[in-house]
């Protein structure tokens, strides 16, 4: 009986050890999963902005080419700038000159190219000889050239049941999207939020003021 009890006890202890081991395994497994998820989320989050920095930071001048006014997009770019300027440390201010820190805004046409491309942003750095040359989005750059495509906006497409060109709020979203690229904001690939202008495609600007999601991403990159 005693033996049996001891045996029971040893089984209990053995089971207990198994349980403890099992619990430890569970804890370790859970921790590993949590750590992995955290790493994934963290890397995914960091993928929402480009690495490197912008010389002279995010308080910077922007120059509107004459194409912006002549095609009637001055207000569109104003809203694109205001989206990021309001409630963040970004201060993109309009200037009638250019230097090595000035972003350049243009309105273009596709010239026989792809009409599904709504806007483009290309970063530039300055060489030792003073030439502005292409930069990689993930390296430190001096300024960006931002282009919106008028004929891509004008092209009629099916939007649900209506066949029409893009409307003003949809074009404003593309403007804010491209201005976002000029501030090293990347695409919202992980789709962790729909509350952002950095998603691809045609939809209304969510708000004329920066959304919580975009503000958080901006702050992660540039601070308060």
């Amino acid at each position, binding site marked *: 009986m005693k033996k049996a009890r001891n045996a029971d006890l040893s089984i209990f202890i053995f089971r207990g050890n198994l349980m403890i081991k099992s619990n430890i395994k569970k804890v370790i497994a859970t921790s590993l999963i949590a750590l992995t998820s955290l790493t994934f989320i963290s890397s995914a989050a960091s*993928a929402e902005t*480009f690495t490197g920095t912008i010389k002279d930071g995010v308080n910077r001048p922007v*120059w509107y*080419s*004459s*194409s912006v006014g*002549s*095609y009637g997009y001055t207000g569109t770019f104003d809203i694109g700038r205001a989206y990021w300027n309001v409630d963040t440390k970004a201060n993109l201010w309009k200037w009638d*000159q*250019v230097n090595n820190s000035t972003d*350049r805004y*243009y*309105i*273009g046409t*596709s*010239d*026989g*190219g*792809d*009409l*599904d*491309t*709504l*806007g*483009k*942003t*290309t970063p*530039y750095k300055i*060489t030792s*000889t003073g*030439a*502005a*040359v*292409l*930069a*990689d*989005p*993930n390296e430190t750059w001096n300024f960006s*050239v931002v*282009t919106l495509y008028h004929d891509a906006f004008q092209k009629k*497409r099916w939007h649900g049941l209506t066949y029409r060109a893009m409307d003003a709020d949809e074009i404003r979203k*593309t403007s804010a*999207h*491209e201005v976002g*690229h000029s501030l090293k904001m*990347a*695409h919202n*690939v992980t789709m962790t939020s729909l509350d952002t202008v950095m998603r*691809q*495609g*045609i939809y209304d600007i969510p708000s004329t003021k920066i959304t919580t999601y975009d503000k958080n991403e901006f702050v992660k990159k540039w601070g308060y």
Partner: protein
Amino acid sequence: MFKKVFMPLSIVAVLGAGVFTYSSLQHNKPEKTVATSVKPSSGMPVYISEGDYISYSTVDSMENASDLVVVATPKKPFEQRKHVTTYVSDPSGQKFPENSYTLTDVSIKKVLSAKDSSLSKLKSVSVVENIGVIKDNDGINKKLSFEGYEEMSNKSDYILYLTKNDNGTYSITNILNGKFDVKAHTVAPKLAEAQREHASDHTQFEQQVKAKFKKELAEYTN
């Protein structure tokens, strides 16, 4: 009296209107300058423009938006294709590409799907590829890719989802995710961040497209 007074006035008015219209058109003309064709060479550095484009999240929606789905191969190597780049300038005189793309003539080997039956007889089309060749402000020729798009090789067969443009050329629907190498996995490691961003989507699209047309693609995959 009528002829002496009103005729000259009418002529002046017509001429004035003409001058006004011309000056308005000139005023509205952006500072776009020249379309320059730069001769490409192998090993040119590649740079990327980021941007906003119309994308499709499913293979079905991509196919609905496409006029044509084909198996095709470029007729010529990249260096011998037509490269189109237009530039704009700034007050400092520096030039920046406004558009940079390549027109690639492809031979159609098989039509997998066509919206219009007349399209199913096409033997070749001209495809707009979102990668061009530019002369940068340091005088060096470079490739400029949109979103990390990589050009088709004339040594491979591709499944292409195509949308017809008004000028008769075709664009690749969904840009990076509407073009798939029939044999290989087409996410190129070269174009760092932009490709990584699209890599997961591309793999999913590729698997679904190849599964959908498995029977039709059999003769090209063996």
